[in-house]
């Protein structure tokens, strides 16, 4: 019994740390090799406080978590500033682990390499279990909040995340801090359970266990790492003699999983009726292994190795299969019942929530705004100044001049087309305008303000949205979530509220965001697909989703980069209607790059033609179609030349 308790408590402790790593590596996509160091920071802080200063457990744990967070920011800030490369963070966490070990070994306070023995055993199976459940609950809430969505978006596609105004550094640091806090909590609990800590405990081995748990469990799931970490704690206990081989196994598993099944056990799923049998199978395997090992130990001495092995294998297999069927049976049983259970529970919950809302109504945000958004000031077509003004824009890459002195004015409410042969600089103009590339010379002015030097996220939040030639969606999120993520400026709540999901602040906001997202999906006629995973959508619909997402930021100017790419004539027509619709309804100004001439000619008020990075013509569609320079740029010139000698 005590043995089982020990296994359970250890599992719970490591699961807490694994949850943190799951959020950081699994969801945000950043690789940390030093989470053991964050555990160490929490462990030592909490232990020192209870041991030397006789603090009670809870404040000690909390301070340990705070120290872990601070420590993680020291590692995170320099490395996360380098965009789009996670190698630096990995190297820094490795280096940091070493550095921390040295510090711990040499400080008097931590008693050096000998460690701290005799810590009070303040942690046991019960309070650890409570902490574990609390952790899982908070993580789940976090991932469903605006903060969580932003972090998942960064993990899916950081470039697209920036293009909807999500700043990488603060959000990545938030993810790091949160995961370090959980590691610190885990460390503190560990210290007060095993009552003796030394720097050697918080080694690469520990980080490897956590990493293996998250990777094998599935990057993008919470259930997966819980199951895998528990497995990695429980199973080696059964095979005590093979302690070192356990680590070899973790390493091998990492290689095998990455090569053969990168999504691990659970991929992006959580526990549901569909994969319930799988969970039972895993439990069955573990129990089967345990029983098999027990049988082997008991019977092999008498009956011999081979018969003992055979019996163990047979019994183990039977247990596994039995559990698998039990799981399937349970799933079948629950399937018709669960929706009803869910609905009843939900109704009851709603009643309680409304009670609270009644009590706390002064704090409630104005509920009447569900769905509606304050109308923006009318775009005045007869305005005095252009909305976007480009003057003398120049950009070169190495020796190649991509944009060579382009002037363009876009007036509010216009739809302007930007056309030109391949390589004429059109996408570069977009990239310069949205701040993706720095401008070499020239000026881009939006609403009278200069855009030069602003980071892409500021430009997006200032009212310019864009879509990409190669669609960049958050493919593992649902269609609805893609749009909801982009609504992060439309409604927000504090971090604490996100963790706890107070029904009276978080729910109205989430509902409002959801309604607004559905409204936007309605504009592009995608409501029916709201809960489909975005990556499974056909191409034309993915394009529409990208537009809906861009609209979520309430832009004044929408830049569309080849929206009709890869579409057949019918789809192109639908697109033209869509753009016309959103142009009117949302009072947008649109600039679009396109090669499908039917789209351009039917849609645009004015067209600018680029060639070799210069603007060679500008005018109405009719003017452009009859302009000989344009014809030449596209179809090529009949050049009179002397034959080469």
């Amino acid at each position, binding site marked *: 019994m005590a043995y089982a308790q020990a296994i359970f408590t250890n599992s719970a402790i490591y699961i807490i740390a694994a949850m943190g790593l799951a959020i950081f590596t699994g969801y945000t996509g950043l690789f940390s090799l030093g989470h053991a160091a964050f555990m160490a920071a929490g462990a030592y802080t909490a232990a020192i406080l209870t041991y030397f200063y006789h603090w009670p457990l809870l404040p000690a744990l909390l301070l340990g978590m705070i120290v872990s967070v601070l420590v993680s920011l020291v590692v995170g800030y320099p490395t996360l500033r380098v965009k789009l490369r996670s190698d630096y963070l990995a190297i820094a966490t490795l280096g940091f682990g070493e550095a921390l070990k040295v510090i711990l070994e040499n400080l008097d306070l931590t008693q050096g390499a000998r460690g701290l023995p005799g810590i009070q055993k303040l942690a046991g199976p019960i309070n650890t279990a409570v902490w574990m459940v609390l952790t899982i609950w908070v993580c789940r809430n976090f991932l469903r909040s605006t903060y969580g969505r932003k972090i998942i978006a960064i993990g899916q596609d950081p470039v697209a995340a920036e293009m909807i105004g999500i700043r990488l550094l603060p959000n990545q640091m938030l993810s790091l801090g949160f995961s370090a806090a959980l590691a610190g909590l885990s460390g503190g609990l560990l210290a007060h359970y095993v009552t003796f800590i030394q720097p050697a405990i918080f080694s690469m081995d520990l980080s490897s266990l956590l990493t293996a748990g998250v990777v094998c469990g599935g990057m993008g799931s919470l259930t997966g790492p819980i199951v895998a970490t528990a497995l990695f704690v429980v199973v080696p206990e059964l095979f005590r003699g093979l302690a070192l081989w356990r680590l070899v196994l973790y390493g091998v598993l990492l290689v095998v999983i990455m090569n053969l099944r990168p999504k691990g056990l659970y991929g992006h799923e959580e526990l549901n009726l569909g994969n319930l049998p799988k969970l039972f199978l895993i439990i069955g395997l573990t129990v089967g292994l345990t029983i098999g090992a027990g049988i082997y130990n008991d019977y092999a001495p008498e009956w011999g190795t081979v018969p003992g092995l055979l019996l163990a294998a047979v019994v183990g297999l039977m247990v596994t299969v039995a559990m698998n069927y039990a799981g399937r049976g349970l799933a079948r049983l629950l399937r018709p019942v669960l929706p009803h259970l869910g609905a009843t529970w939900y109704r009851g919950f709603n009643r309680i929530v409304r009670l609270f809302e009644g009590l706390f109504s002064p704090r409630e945000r104005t509920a009447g705004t569900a769905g509606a958004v304050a109308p923006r000031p009318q775009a005045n077509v007869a305005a005095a100044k252009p909305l976007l003004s480009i003057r003398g824009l120049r950009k070169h890459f190495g020796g190649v001049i991509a944009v060579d002195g382009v002037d363009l004015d876009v007036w509010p409410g216009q739809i302007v087309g930007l056309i030109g042969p391949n390589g004429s600089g059109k996408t570069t103009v977009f990239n310069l305008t949205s701040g993706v590339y720095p401008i070499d010379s020239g000026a881009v002015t939006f609403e009278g303000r200069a855009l030069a030097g602003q980071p892409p996220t500021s430009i997006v939040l200032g009212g310019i949205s864009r879509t990409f030639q190669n669609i960049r969606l958050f493919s593992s999120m649902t269609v609805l979530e893609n749009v909801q993520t982009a609504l992060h400026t439309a409604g927000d709540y504090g971090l604490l509220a996100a963790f706890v999901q107070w029904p009276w602040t978080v729910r109205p906001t989430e509902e409002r965001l959801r309604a607004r997202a559905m409204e936007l999906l309605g504009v592009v006629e995608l409501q029916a697909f709201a809960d489909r995973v975005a990556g499974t959508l056909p191409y034309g619909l993915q394009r529409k989703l990208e537009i809906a997402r861009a609209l979520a930021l309430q832009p004044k100017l929408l830049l569309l980069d080849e929206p009709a790419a890869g579409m057949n*004539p019918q789809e192109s027509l639908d697109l033209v209607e869509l753009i016309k619709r959103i142009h009117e309804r949302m009072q947008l100004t649109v600039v679009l790059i396109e090669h499908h001439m039917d789209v351009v000619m039917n849609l645009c008020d004015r067209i600018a033609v680029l060639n070799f990075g210069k603007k060679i013509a500008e005018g109405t569609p009719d003017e452009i179609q009859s302009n000989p320079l344009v014809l030449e740029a596209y179809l090529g010139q009949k050049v009179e030349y002397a034959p080469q000698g």
Partner: protein
Amino acid sequence: MLLRVDRLNYYYGEAIHALRDVSFEVEEGEIAAIIGANGAGKSTLMWTLVGLLKPKSGTITFNGRPMKPIPHQAVASGIALVPERRRLFPNLTVRENLTLGGYRRSDKAGLAKDEDYVFSLFPVLRERFTQFAGTLSGGQQQMLAIARALMSRPKLLLMDEPSLGLAPVLVGQVFDAIQEIARQGTTMLLVEQNALKALEISRRAYVLEVGRIVLQGTGKELLRSPIVQAAYLGVRQRKEVILEEGFHAH
């Protein structure tokens, strides 16, 4: 037939059907052209021919033998690609770029002869032999890219938008070189947005539209076709006309 492509299909991921039942042929010794707007699938087709992309279905037969999607085998069989936007190695010299073109060959004499040949086509490369490829101008880079491909002494030379980003007079030079290379016996398949020039010099031509071959004929025939003109510049047409006439002529 030197190259025969039969009902080639390629998908990007699950959803994007980039090449739809593409079928065409190129006879030995001729210049063939495939024209189409951006996004029509021209580069996708080139990459599939050279073995970088694996088609979902369909066959590619070169010199009587079926081709497998392994790039270095394509060169070994005698296909060379001059890719879109050149893709030279800017950190290597002109000489080193050419050496890589002839990577698979070990016949020193043959290589030297071919080097002379490409210098006769593009004398500027001899002048800049030891300079870094990144310092060349756009036109010179195009010439180097073609020369690099020629160094493998290919039977079939694939060229992806050779006129991209080049001033008109340079385009003329490049197309002169293309015709000279053809005269020396190399079969060529061009894909181009610059329809006029490509159609002028090609014996056989195809129009690719949203992944499908929609028109074929001789270069001259296609030059005169109103559909080709419309495909490029579009006419303000009513909805029904677009759908009806569309791009379904075959």
